[in-house]
């Protein structure tokens, strides 16, 4: 469990965070949304113990991240936005080094590293230098590095950025698995549709303050124009024409968003069937009341 109590952070005269209060419970995924510079990464770096708060407390499983850093850090894994590792080291040797901080013996660390590298599909690159890893591989490795000590809490800072659709799906599955295993997951992302798909709650931050926490059950009742997101594997130029039949359709990467005032949850299965009948492989379909993005933008712009 991560308990953030009245945390503020100042950089000189600039207040980056103002009295943040948030609790991430075991078995819960909390999304963290905000515009660039809102304070998402600063908050995550403070929770991970990399930088100090100016005031307030952060307890990780009851251990204060500043006063009991060693104990608190055993229970938290940080996945940074831009993974930065020693470039000339192989993933396997770096994982053994990290495992040493948790008191894991070298032999046990090797077994654990093998299990995780295989799980994240980078086992074949275990002896490669990290400088030769692609960004996607580095992100996967940073997740392995966060998991090496098997912590109860995870911080994902814009981890979905720059991943291919398969990578995003893998991340989503992994976070849901973590949740199922009782882990607390705190995920900041610009991809609001993904937060909408997996988060139990979404905290919205603006100018260093949490201005709204939306519960999952309220996500479909935000008001405004209902929408359906559909992800298609073999998409082409004709997809938008087909989907326009159901409402105004826009495309972002492989995700199509259909918006219409009379859309209902039942339309999801109709659209799914319609696209399959037209020869498309549908990866996922999800319904949202008002698109979170619209709600979010209204909130942070006001």
């Amino acid at each position, binding site marked *: 469990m991560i308990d953030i109590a009245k945390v503020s952070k100042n950089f000189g005269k600039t207040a980056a965070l103002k009295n943040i209060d948030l609790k991430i419970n075991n078995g819960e995924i909390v999304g963290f949304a905000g515009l660039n510079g809102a304070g998402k990464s600063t908050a995550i*770096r403070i929770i*991970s*113990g*990399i*930088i*100090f708060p100016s005031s307030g407390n952060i307890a990780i499983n009851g251990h204060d991240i500043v006063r009991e*850093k*060693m*104990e608190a*850090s*055993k229970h*938290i*894994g*940080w996945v*940074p936005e*831009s*993974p*930065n*590792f*020693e470039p*000339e080291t192989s993933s396997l040797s770096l994982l053994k*080094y*990290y495992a*040493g*901080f*948790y*008191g894991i*013996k070298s032999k046990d660390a090797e077994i654990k590293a093998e299990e995780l590298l295989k799980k994240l599909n980078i086992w074949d690159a275990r002896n490669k230098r990290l400088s030769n890893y692609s960004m996607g591989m580095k992100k996967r490795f*940073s997740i392995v*590095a*966060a998991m090496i*000590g098997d912590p109860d809490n995870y911080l994902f800072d814009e981890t979905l950025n720059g991943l291919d659709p398969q990578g995003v799906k893998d991340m989503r599955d992994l976070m849901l698995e973590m949740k199922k295993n009782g882990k607390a997951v705190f995920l900041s992302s610009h991809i609001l549709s993904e937060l909408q798909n997996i988060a139990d709650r979404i905290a919205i931050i603006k100018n260093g303050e949490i201005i709204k926490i939306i519960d999952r059950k309220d996500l479909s009742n935000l008001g405004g124009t209902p929408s359906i997101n559909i992800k298609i594997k073999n998409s082409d130029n004709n997809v938008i024409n087909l989907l326009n039949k159901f409402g105004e359709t826009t495309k972002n990467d492989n995700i199509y968003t259909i918006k219409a005032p009379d859309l209902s949850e039942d339309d999801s299965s109709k659209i799914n069937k319609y696209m399959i009948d037209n020869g498309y492989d549908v990866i996922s379909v999800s319904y949202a009341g008002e698109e979170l993005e619209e709600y979010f933008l209204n909130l942070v712009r006001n």
Partner: protein
Amino acid sequence: MNSFLYDLKRIFTGSFTIIIIVLLVIVTMMEAYGTVGSVNSAVSPPSSTSIYTGMQSSISGFYALLIPLFGIFSAYFYYGKDKTSGILESIISKPVTKGRLFLSRFLGTSLTFVMAITLAIGLADILIYKYTGSFLSDTGFLSIVIGYSVVAIGYSGLMYLIAQFAKSSDIMIGSGLGLLFILGFFWGILMYLLLIRFLEHASFIKFQSILIYLNSISPSNYSTIMEYLKEGSYKSIINVGIVAGIGIIWILVPAFISFMLARSRD
């Protein structure tokens, strides 16, 4: 194994550490041949004092550049580079504090210098013995090892201090080399000119005392001060207490200030 020892082990087995040791041994052995040549022409077997003098004169020129560079670059490779590039953050997020990480890296690099210099001088001593039949005396050996170890640790401590403020690798390396330029190459001349300007009519003893104290502000001059102590020069100014005090200051003060900053700053 706890994280502190693990980090220490990692520095000892790091490629830069191995390069330091190998380079220092090769250079010192080459210089030792020069020593053999210079003492062979004297009385046979030569005294340990003449071995010491020969060894010091052979290595001092090269060590004056090499040892500070080792101090500067190992602090850069094992701490500064990781700090400025953000690599250190991926480690700090693990169960380790900034202070412990600093200590393990600083102690690791410091022990590396002591080991490398001991090994290099030890092997050179054996080589000289093979050709001349004389070893360095214990005090001569210790004087060289301690003198140059303090030089390396002093520069390394200053680099750890710079790393607390430097925002990029370029700034860090540039500052380190700038420091070497001033403290290593020009400090003695600058202090001498300063004293001539302000203490023109001082007695020789007073002038010399102040000059030695001012020179001790640069870590580069510690090996020379150690040499004065070993040879018994400037006995009225230099004694074991003063030399030990200067050495301890160079080992501890920059490191302590850096440590306090490292554990309290973001």
